[in-house]
Structure formats: C-alpha cells, structure tokens
C-alpha cells in the first residue's frame, strides 16, 4: 500500500514532469514553485539514478550499534555493516550497462590532451566574483572526505600521442590507470568498478582519517583532542611528503587545504573543551568520538547552508538547502512541523533528524558524482598576499610555491592570518572553459609525476565509464544538445569545440559540456551537474544514521547539537583567527568575498 508521503510526493513529481516537458526548466519558475519542482526532480532522480555495484551486501540487524562514527566507516548503517566503509566500491548513478569503460581507440579520441590544450587552457584568469578562494579550497577539502581513488597503477599506463606543436615534457604523455578493484570477479562480465580509499560517509575523514591506525597517530591522547604543535598540524615524516601536514587525507595538498584542515582540527579541540566542561568525567575516547560527531555535522551544515547557497546563489536554492538542513518551515511552526514530520515530507521538515533512507541502493559515493566535482578551474594561478591589518601588498606568489612540499614553508613565511585573509578576500576561478589553472595543466606531483590535470579530467571519465555529455544528460532525462551552437553562449568556443570533436556532437566529453553550459542565473556551475548534485547532496545526509534517526541529544549531547545549530563558518574562522573579525564584519556568507582593508586607510 502506498504511504501518504508516497502519494503526495508521487503526485508532485508527476505534475512537474509535465511542466518541465512543456519546456519550462525549474530555475525559470517563481520561488516556491521552483522549490517544489526541485523536490520532484529529486524524487525522480532517487527512483532512476541510484544503482548498486556492491556484491558483498549482508543484511542483518546489527546488535550493539555503536553510538559514534567508527574509524573506518563500518557499522554505520543499522543493517549493512560494510556499507559506506573505507575500501568499498563506488556506486553509480546510471544503470550498470551505461557505465562501461571506453576502450581504445575511442578512449583516446579525440585526444584528451588536445581537448585540454584547446578548450581548457586559461588564456586569461576568469574570476567567479561572488565567491572567495576559501570556497575553492573548501570543496576540495570536502571532496577529500567523501572520495578518493587512491594511488594510480604504475603498471598499467595509457600513452597519449602528442600533437606536432605540443612540447610536453615526454612524448607520448603517460597517464597511469586508476588502480583496479581486486575484489571484482573478472569473469562476472559487469563493467569495472573502483574502490573508495576513504569512508563514503560525511564523517570528516579528511581530517580524522579512514582507519583507527591512521587516526591514533594524529591524536593528542588526552581530553579527546587532536594533535597540534604550536597551533599547526604535525608534519609527515616520509621525505616524499616533506612539508605536508599529517592529516586524514593529504593528497594534492596545498596551503588552501592546510588552512582548512588546521582550522577544523582546532574546531575539534574547541568542541572537546566545550564538552569537557559539561562532562568532566568523560575519558579521552568518549570526548574524541563525540567531538568528531559534532565537528563532522558542523562541516556538513556549513556546506549545506553556506557553501552551497554561496556557489548556487538563487532564492530557490537558498530555501532548498535550508530545507535540507532545517526544513522549509519556520522554527515557530512546531505543530505543523510535527505533522509534516509524521508524514515524512522532507520539504517541510528537513532531512536532519528525519527517517534514515537509502532509496533503493546502498549508500555510496558514485563515479558520476566525482566527475561533476572536477572543479579545477576554481584554482587561481596568482596569489597576491596582503597584510590583513593594513591591506598592504606583501608579495605576489604563484600557485606552485604554495603547494606540495612547499606548503609548510609558505604557511610559516606568510602566517595564517594573512593567508586566510587572502583566501577570504580574493576570487577563485569561474567554473568554465578556458579557465583551467595553468599550474595544474603543468603540474608536478610530490611523486615527481608530471601531469596535465585537464587531460586527466577528460581521460578519467572515459576510463571509468562515465558517459559523454549528451548521453549523460539523457540518463538524467535532460534533452540532448543537438547543435554545437547551443553548447555554450560563446560562438567562438562552439566553433573550437566543433573543431576538436570533428563535428561529432555526441562525442563531446562530459567535462567540456559541463564547463561550457550556461549555468542558471546565480549558479556557479551547470544545471546538468546540478542534477547529480541535488540527488547526492541530500543523500549524503538522508542515508546517514547520524544525520537522521541518530541526530539526537542522546548521541550528540544537547550541547553538541546546540554548537552545530549556533555556529557558522564565519564563527569558526573568528574563533581561531580573531584578528580576522573586522574582515568578516557584516559578511552574510563566509564563502563570499570578505571586506578588504585598504592601504593607508582604516579597514
């Protein structure tokens, strides 16, 4: 028998399908209608775009469900102990027969290197003026808590022939393949799957790590705290990782990540202090585990109600994302809230504290989700560091002296305050074509590998069987783009794309389509990417016991819930960098540019 909620949401979805077919996209509708349309889109996406890749599912009610987040992400789901844990498979948003890897020659056609050179090269920095660089570092920081394919496989390489005019350091360009999933039976005939080296859950694993062993060495050993030495994270001991913080996830490390990892380790320790005041008898472990719950939820809240509306700046989304966290109803409508909650209408009551639900497939980050988060154009090449008090220029530096093994030296040289000030006041790159950071198209990893990240962004999708742009849209029930003229708002770009793809519109790569597409008004990225995003962003909350049925004072403590509720990103920054309070004054969103001090004048 269909539930009342099923009938209501089902009807909503049917109505909007008709409206959207008539050619009116959700973002052209007035506020509340747009919000309901979004809810309907998400219903359809949940129904059609969650696909299981695992074959190790054992469903059995878990006795003694731990009242905290485990180190490796096991035993988080009440029935499926392995779900979401480190080392399990990425899921899929498309039916598995739509996830087959591309083989040569198609794998290399057109050359991903040429796509990168001709369509991604940053001629001139295009800024995203509504955002600050902190927003860029933030999303990389969050990504690292959700997914990672781990080290590539040096034994299995893809060679890319260079064009005649390309003077890359080696010919052919070599890209190592993604490490294969050894748990997969090569005979089962299904498309290749990959393993997530971190926990899939939104549990702060980027700072806490994804195993107990990894976590223990980062702990202070008392009062639940994480280790900080003179206010900085400990450094890695391995000489290859010299200058890089020892933290939960430190691949592709740079100053932007160091700022955020350190900030949220400090926040963790502040939460420990807060908890210890109320629970002086708790031991190190209990304080740690509870503080982690609170800190992870605070990050999730900041991401949901601050970062997301920052990058998707439209009234519908402001309400929509608030609805994800708090519910759309004002706080005072307690009575109504109870009713909507009973009916499990998320749009009314919010996901937080609602019923735990996986919608058909076990919770896992998906390959398609990872693809839409390849937002490398966000990273600027040039960094002019200013004094946060006077606004005076200190030095202009390039990305390369702020990353990898130079990370710590840069932090020591410029200091947290001026670096954080830079990240708060300057713009990131716009997410579009011809805006990949030059530094990342000519990037030397700490391993010494020389890579063009533009090439890799394209090649990985093909390698991992993430569909090209038009097929990808079709899987999301969006219309195919039938003419090059309609790919981007820029005719010159459209001509370039036509040229690169030899007039074959269906060959256009996902990344090219996403970066070229004109985003809805106020959006920092495309509507196509957004479809994956609304599905997966709410799923990260809805599938997680600690954001749903266990988001309670018994698990988090009342003080913990209150901490999450009261604090914003600006609060976290000011708590640990009070000298930046003037820059944040009057700021409505810490991911929008902060107020600048002007040289010679007052702030």
């Amino acid at each position, binding site marked *: 028998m269909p539930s009342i909620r099923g009938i209501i949401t089902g009807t909503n979805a049917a109505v909007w399908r008709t409206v959207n077919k008539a050619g009116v996209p959700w973002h052209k509708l007035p506020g509340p209608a747009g919000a309901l349309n979004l809810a309907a889109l998400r219903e359809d996406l949940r129904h059609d775009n969650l696909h299981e890749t695992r074959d190790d599912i054992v469903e059995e009610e878990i006795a003694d469900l731990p009242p905290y987040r485990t180190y490796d992400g096991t035993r988080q789901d009440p029935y499926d102990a392995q779900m979401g844990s480190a080392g399990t498979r990425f899921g899929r948003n498309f039916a598995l027969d739509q996830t087959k890897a591309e083989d040569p020659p198609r794998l290399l056609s057109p050359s991903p290197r040429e796509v990168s050179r001709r369509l991604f090269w940053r001629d001139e920095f295009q800024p995203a003026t509504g955002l600050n660089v902190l927003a860029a570092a933030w999303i990389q920081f969050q990504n690292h808590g959700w997914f990672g394919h781990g080290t590539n496989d040096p034994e299995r390489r893809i060679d890319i022939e260079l064009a005649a005019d390309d003077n890359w350091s080696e010919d052919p360009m070599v890209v190592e393949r993604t490490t294969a999933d050894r748990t997969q039976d090569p005979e089962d005939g299904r498309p290749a799957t990959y393993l997530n080296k971190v926990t899939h859950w939104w549990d702060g694993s980027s700072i806490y790590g994804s195993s107990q062993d990894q976590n223990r060495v980062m702990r202070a050993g008392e009062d639940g705290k994480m280790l900080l030495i003179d206010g900085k994270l400990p450094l890695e001991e391995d000489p290859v990782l010299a200058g890089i913080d020892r933290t939960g996830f430190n691949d592709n490390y740079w100053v932007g990540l160091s700022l955020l990892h350190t900030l949220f380790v400090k926040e963790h320790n502040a939460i420990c202090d807060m908890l210890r005041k109320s629970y002086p008898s708790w031991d190190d472990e209990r304080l740690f585990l509870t503080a982690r719950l609170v800190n992870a939820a605070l990050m999730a809240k900041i991401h949901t109600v601050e970062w997301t509306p920052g990058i998707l700046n439209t009234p519908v989304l402001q309400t929509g994302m608030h609805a994800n966290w708090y519910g759309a109803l004002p706080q005072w409508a307690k009575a109504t809230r109870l009713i909507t909650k009973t009916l499990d209408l998320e749009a009314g009551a919010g996901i937080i504290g609602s019923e735990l639900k996986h919608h058909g497939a076990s919770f896992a980050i998906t390959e398609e989700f990872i693809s839409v988060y390849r937002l490398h154009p966000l990273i600027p090449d040039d960094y002019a560091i200013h004094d946060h008090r006077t606004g005076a220029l200190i030095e202009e530096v390039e990305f390369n002296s702020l990353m990898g093994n130079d990370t710590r030296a840069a932090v020591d040289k410029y200091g947290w305050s001026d670096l954080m000030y830079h990240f708060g006041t300057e713009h990131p790159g716009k997410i579009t074509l011809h805006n990949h950071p030059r530094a990342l198209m000519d990037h030397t990893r700490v391993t010494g590998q020389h890579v063009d990240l533009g090439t890799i962004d394209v090649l990985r999708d093909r390698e991992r069987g993430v569909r090209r742009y038009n097929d990808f849209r079709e899987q999301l029930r969006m219309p195919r783009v039938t003419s090059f003229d309609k790919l981007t708002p820029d005719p010159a770009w459209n001509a370039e794309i036509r040229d690169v793809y030899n007039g074959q519109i269906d060959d256009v790569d996902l990344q090219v389509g996403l970066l070229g597409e004109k985003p809805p008004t106020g959006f920092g990225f495309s509507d196509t990417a957004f479809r994956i995003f609304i599905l997966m962003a709410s799923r990260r909350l809805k599938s997680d016991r600690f954001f749903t049925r266990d988001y309670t004072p018994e698990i988090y403590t*009342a*003080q913990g819930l209150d901490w999450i509720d009261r604090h914003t990103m600006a609060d976290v920054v000011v*708590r640990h960098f009070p000298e930046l*309070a003037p820059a944040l004054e009057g700021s409505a969103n810490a991911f929008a540019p902060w107020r600048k001090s002007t040289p010679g004048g007052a702030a």
Partner: protein
Amino acid sequence: MVLDFKHASIPEGVRFTAQVGVPNVVQGLFRKREKVVAVAGLVQADQLAYGCTASLVKKYGPEPFWVRLVTEEALLVHHPDDIRRVLEGSPTPFASDPDAKRKGMSAFQPTALTLSRGDLWADRRSFAEAVLDTGRPIHRLGQRFAAVAVEEADAVLGLGRPVTWADVHEAFQRLTRRVVIGADAADDTALSDELGALMDAGNKMPGKPAAGYEDFHAHLQKYVDTPDPEALTGLVAAAPHTDDEETDAAGQLIHWLFAMGDTLPANLVRTLAVLAGHPLQLAEVRAELTGKRLTAAKSVAGAAYLAGCILDTMRLWPTTALFGRVTTEDVRFPQGELVPAGSQVLIHNLFNHRNRERIPYADRFAPEEWVTGGASDDWSFNFFSNGPQGCPGAGLSVFLGQAFLGRLLTQADPVVTSGPHPRPGKPLAYTLDLNALEIDLQPR
C-alpha cells in the same frame, strides 16, 4: 556576524534583576541595613537568588551567558574555568570597578585599591601587600595581633550575658582600630562612627566623596603621621609608595577598617553559630587547640581545622554574594566569543558556592574540605575573590578569626539561644541572619 555567548530572555532578566540584583543591593550595602536583612531573610531572598541563577545555568549550560541586570546586559560567569579567566585577568582587562560599586564606594574611599586600574592599581596594590604581608604565612605583627584578638574575645566573654551581633561588632571595631591604627585609637569610636556615616551616604551611590570625607581623611592622616610600631600604621613608612597623592596611604586604610571591622566579624559570628550546632566539628576544633597558647602566633596560624570552619562558613554564607568586573577592552573568550569593552561581568558567589551540580558538599558544613580536600584550589569559591586582585587581607582575616574564635571556644560552650540554628542533617539554609542571633557563651 559576531561570536557571542547566549542571551537570557527579557523575562529572565527581569527575574534575575528582582531575585539576584535587587536583594544584593538592598542587603549588600556598605553597612547591612538591619531591617532589610531581616525581612529579606523572612522572604528567603537568598534562596530565590540561588534558584534563579541555578535555573538559568541549567538552561544555558556551562558557558557564560548574558543576563539583563536592570537595564544593561551583564555576562554571568559560573564555571570555575571562566571565573578563573576573569579573576586572573584582573584588573586588566577585567577591572573591579563596575559603575555601581565605584559610585557607592567613592563616597567613603575614592582612592580605594579596589576602584583603581592600571599603574595606579599596581602602585596601591604593592603598598597594601607590603603592609598586610599578603601571602606570608604569618603577619610580622602576628604575635601582637593575636594578643589583641584574645583581649577582645575576653571582653566579649566578660559581658556575662548571651551575646549579639552588635556586641561582637563593637568588640571588633575596637580590635580593628587597635590592629590597623594602634593603641591611641583604641577608644576612638568617633572614627568608626564617621566611617559608618560615610558608608551610609555611599548607599545613595553619589559617585563622589560624601560630605565629611575630608575631615575623616584628615582624621586618619593624623594617625598615619604618628604611627604605632605595633599596628599596621607602623609599617606604612617602610612600604613602597610613590607619593602621597597617588598611593594615599591614609585612604587605603579605609578599606581595611571596614573589611576588618564589619565584614570579618560578620563571618565570625556565623562561624560561632554553626559550630554551636555542629558538636562533632566543635570537638575537632577543641582537640586541635588543646595545649596551645593562643598568644603564640604559630599556634594560632596552625589551627588549620578552625581556619577550615571559618572558610567553610564564608563559603556557605558569603558576605560578598555577588561581585563583578567590567571589561576595559574587547575580550575574546577561548571559543572566540566576544565580550565588548565596558561590559559588566558577574560572579554570583551565593550560587557558585552552593552549586549542587558541581559541589558534593554544597549545603553542608564541610571544614575538612579546606584542610585535606580540594576546596582551596577550587575557583568556584570566591568569598575572598581570587587571582591578582584577590583580597590581600585574607590571610590576616583568617588569622584574627582563629585567635578570636579560638579563645572563645577554649573558654566557653556556644549555645544559640535565639535566631537560626544551623545544624547537620538537612541542607543548610541560604540565609543566616546575623541580627536575629543570640549566642550564650557558657563557661566551660
């Protein structure tokens, strides 16, 4: 966007003002108004005050929170870590001269140490510490002071009738004049009366020296200029002071006179009443004093259990029920919360000392906690305040109390014949009304 502590609601502020603020002002004045205190005792004002703060703390948790006191929001700090932060940060950035206190006290001691800030405070503080021997185990003149205390105790014993607060108060005024000023002032009751009148004037919070202050100051100055080597005036010349204007030695004496002459005996009479109802503890005190000569400073100071009795009485019924600080600059607490310059910060001793959530012995008489327990290290207890601006006369106060009470208790059995009988067995009341007390000191 400002990181801030929570704010109690307006109705809560109204209640806090009525139940904590107002009673503290009407009772806690420079000279407790007898009638007011009695009435307040009847309506159990102290209990309401405890309950008010307790319910706010329960609601707002262990962090400090803002609560409206009359018209202005003040920050109430109650967790020992926060109290410590505030008191260790005195006088900068937490100055001890909130407006009301300054306005009231200026009437009779405009140059008071406790109203001073910055360099001036440091100057006056080092002067006070030098004379009061703050932090030393025994005051240089301890031997002499013990003898005075014993004599004054004997005077009380000699009354031959049940004693009242007024009797002890009178004896202590005399003791204070002898200890602070010297033999010449022993019978100068006019001096005490002058101070009393000025303090009454202070209750109107004039914000400037009251009429008669000049004469009173001159009166004191004369004594300072003819020091008695066996009293505190005898130590003034050798104590560091920059010049007469700044340090104002005579002006500093004023605080000592009322603290020793009024506050100290109030606490001692309560201790006597408590011991009268706690025979086990009384026996312990006597055991400790057996065979000791109370005119030997060392024996007096060594009576640790008796000291514990005095201290725990002060914990149970603090004479400073509520005190405060004012921020001299913007202050950030460790979690980043901003407390703007000029904010009042309150420490509610009456609540903190009895906080049942935190203190296992909250409502019983527990002198042993001061001898072997952790009470001395607990920042919840601030009847003498704490930190750099804590009471510099604390050691001397306890010492005088030990000598005085030691003498009474070795000579007599205290029996409460009228007024409150604090007894073990059930939680001790929040109020112990001095004016209602009558204690018979029956010779042993």
